[in-house]
């Protein structure tokens, strides 16, 4: 089975990205094999979320290319990618706070699924949302809002899921609950790229992890091997060489 026959689900090749003139991603190469969970870890401002925006077409790279299933998709429109089955659950949840839970779920009917089907999937995975279906989303707890955001994402039946800072602002017990769902989704064969600042829980779910600092990937490997590198990366090691020498 050659890599050409089975290309990775998602691949970044020397991707650079910038906001205006400020480059925040400086040539990243990263591979997400089909059916695996890959975690990108790193401190705040490392360029992790920017990389996800590039992957889903929200931010065009200034150089380099993004490949999905062996096809170069640089320049693809985000709505086209979303329709095909790429789903980004953004940092800050991305729900409509002035709409109810049910109305938020209805926003996912663009995929052609009925609201009943979407609710069935959402309320089976997150029964708590079922109890709050008529509640305005802005009044839910942080964990419930994140559940709603995940439900909306999962309702689209994604084949490639991008998760940005799932744990942000949530209690550890809620984060564990959410990552259990992520593990279930991964076991269905969905490829997942997850970005996290807080590593502990995600390392238990990920098949591979990458450490990103200052816009570059400084280490990639199985979570067990990278756990030791994390503190070095977070405490200021800025280059691959620095991290490599700690091994």
């Amino acid at each position, binding site marked *: 089975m050659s890599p050409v026959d089975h290309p990775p689900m998602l691949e970044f090749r020397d991707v650079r990205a910038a906001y205006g003139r400020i480059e925040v991603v400086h040539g990243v190469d990263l591979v997400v094999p089909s*059916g695996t969970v890959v975690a990108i870890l790193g401190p705040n401002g490392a360029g992790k979320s920017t990389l996800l925006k590039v992957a889903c077409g929200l931010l065009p790279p200034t150089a380099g290319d993004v490949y999905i299933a062996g096809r170069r998709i640089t320049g693809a429109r985000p709505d086209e990618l979303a329709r095909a089955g790429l789903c980004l659950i953004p940092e800050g949840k991305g729900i*409509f706070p002035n709409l109810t839970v049910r109305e938020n779920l209805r926003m996912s009917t663009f995929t052609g699924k009925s609201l009943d089907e979407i609710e069935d999937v959402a309320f089976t995975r997150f029964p708590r949302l079922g109890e709050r279906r008529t509640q305005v989303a802005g009044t839910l707890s942080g964990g419930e809002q994140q559940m709603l955001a995940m439900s909306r994402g999962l309702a689209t039946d994604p084949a490639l899921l991008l998760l940005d800072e799932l744990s942000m602002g949530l209690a550890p017990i809620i984060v564990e609950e959410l990552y259990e769902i992520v593990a279930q989704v991964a076991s269905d064969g969905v490829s997942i790229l997850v970005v996290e600042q807080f590593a502990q829980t995600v390392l238990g779910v990920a098949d591979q992890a990458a450490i990103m600092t200052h816009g570059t990937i400084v280490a990639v490997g199985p979570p067990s091997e990278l756990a030791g590198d994390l503190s070095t990366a977070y405490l200021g090691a800025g280059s691959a060489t620095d991290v490599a020498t700690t091994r």
Partner: protein
Amino acid sequence: MSQIETPAPTTAGAAEPSERVARFKAEIAEMRLRDPKASRDRVWALVGLVLMVVGVIVAFAGFFISRGATTAFNSQGPAEQRDAIALAVAGVAVTVFGAAMFIRYSFAQFLRFWLARLIYEQQAQTDRIVEAGKG
């Protein structure tokens, strides 16, 4: 540039591609893509802006020519004035066309999102009113 290769997956996480994944790959393969480097949106927006400015200049030029056309020493005055008025109208048309182009290529993508949201919220509001009416 980081040159670190991701090793092959080590756990049982690499499941057999499901029908959904196969469909996703097929849709990605069939997707029609534009080369982002070939995107001409900015160029067209700039062309629209230039047309707006040129149109205004032409319209004002037509106005001033038409005013100067009718003098006691100019027997062709009325004909020249008609030509100048036509020129001014053409200038206004060019301005309108340029403005439309500028809006199309600079604001359209941004406004499309808000329009979609507005439509949805209006629909939801209507549904709520209808349900309240039934109750």
